[in-house]
């Protein structure tokens, strides 16, 4: 009994310590950002690897989620005779929640794990150490561009997800299930508000971008420089990033859409 408590206590302390280290780390990364203006090409390269390469999964998932929403919501709304609301229901679900959250989860899995593995492997093969010995700060050169690219990419990916999802819902609702075309869009336009819904969704995705990329680069930088170390770090990134996204989503939703 006591042993379990001690174990939990140690876990808790280790967690707190890790969080502290992670916070100091991210401050260091942000401190290196202004210097990046000179190295804009580094950010562009990272935008490609983190953003562009995630496009496929975002597009496909967005389309599918939108289509599924169309089907499912139609089934429920038709019992109330309220199929005219299909447009706003799909749009609001995507723009407020599913767009930012699902895009963040997919991003954590695809780009987050890749970032962790890349940085972790660079650490394991002493490339980071070598860079340090060549008087180049690896935090500024390797980590900072990746963090910035992540923060920029996330809202873009979430927006693309939502937009494609709405189109998917349109194809299913109007194309397949016969909901009225005009009603679909006009109801949506009157119910979806720019400031409250879309901008809040964007804010959410920016926050998620920071969190997921932060976790990803930190885990990579902090990984034990062995094969197991990198593999464990990659798993941790996906798990923690997903949990944090869902947790922060609740907090943000309560703040933004509560009363």
């Amino acid at each position, binding site marked *: 009994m006591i042993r379990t408590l001690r174990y939990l206590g140690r876990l808790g302390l280790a967690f707190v310590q890790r969080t502290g280290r992670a916070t100091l780390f991210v401050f260091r990364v942000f401190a290196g950002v202004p210097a990046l203006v000179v190295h804009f*090409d580094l950010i*562009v*390269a990272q*935008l*490609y690897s983190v*953003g*562009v390469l995630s*496009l496929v999964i975002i597009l496909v998932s967005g389309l599918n989620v939108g289509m599924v929403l169309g089907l499912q919501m139609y089934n429920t709304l038709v019992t109330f005779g309220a199929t005219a609301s299909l447009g706003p229901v799909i*749009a609001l679900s995507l*723009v407020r929640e599913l767009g930012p959250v699902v895009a963040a989860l997919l991003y954590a899995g695809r780009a987050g794990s890749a970032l962790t593995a890349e940085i972790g492997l660079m650490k394991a093969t002493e490339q980071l150490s070598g860079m340090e010995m060549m008087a180049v700060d690896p935090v500024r050169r390797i980590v900072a561009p990746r963090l910035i690219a992540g923060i*920029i*990419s996330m*809202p*873009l*990916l979430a*927006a*693309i997800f*939502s*937009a*494609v999802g*709405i189109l998917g819902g349109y194809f299913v609702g109007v194309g397949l299930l016969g909901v009225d075309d005009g009603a679909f*869009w006009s109801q*949506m*336009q*009157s*119910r*979806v*508000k*720019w400031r409250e*819904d*879309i901008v809040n969704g*964007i804010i959410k995705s920016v926050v998620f971008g920071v969190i997921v990329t932060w976790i990803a680069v930190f885990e990579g930088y902090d990984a034990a420089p062995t094969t197991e170390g990198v593999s464990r770090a990659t798993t941790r990134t996906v798990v923690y990033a997903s949990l944090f996204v869902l947790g922060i989503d609740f907090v943000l939703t309560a703040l933004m859409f509560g009363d």
Partner: protein
Amino acid sequence: MQTKLVEIAVGVFVAAGIAALFMLAMKVSNLASSTISNGYTVTARFENIGGLKVQSPVSAGGVRVGRVIGIKYDQSKYEAEVTMIIDARYNRFPVDTTASVFTSGLLGEQYVNLDPGGADEYLKNGDEIHMTQSALVLEQLIGRFLYSASEGSNSGSGTK
């Protein structure tokens, strides 16, 4: 190195993201229709505004002509004061226009409906609409219905 390809791809990505945001803004939300470039402000007082909110639409004949920009409660007169902005194009509302709080559809959101009167003078910036009709509150409706129903049956039965 394929920097050129990379840069093009990133450019496409960012453009796609911005296009998606734009689409969301214009086609999905009410941003396109909600910005009123220039308009004039009028106020109206109601006993009960029901579920009316700031940004709620102001319509006349079913057409959106403005929106609610402010809601206050007047403690001296115990009334709700609603401020709305009407598009400058629609400047021919007579001063005896009636403003009512209606509900769109059965369960939809509430909006301010303007029913024009017959006066010769038109509403200008800062005017107040004096003829108002409050929102229908479901409980009061039911209460009135029950009361009038029992009244009806009482008088119908006559004296025994």
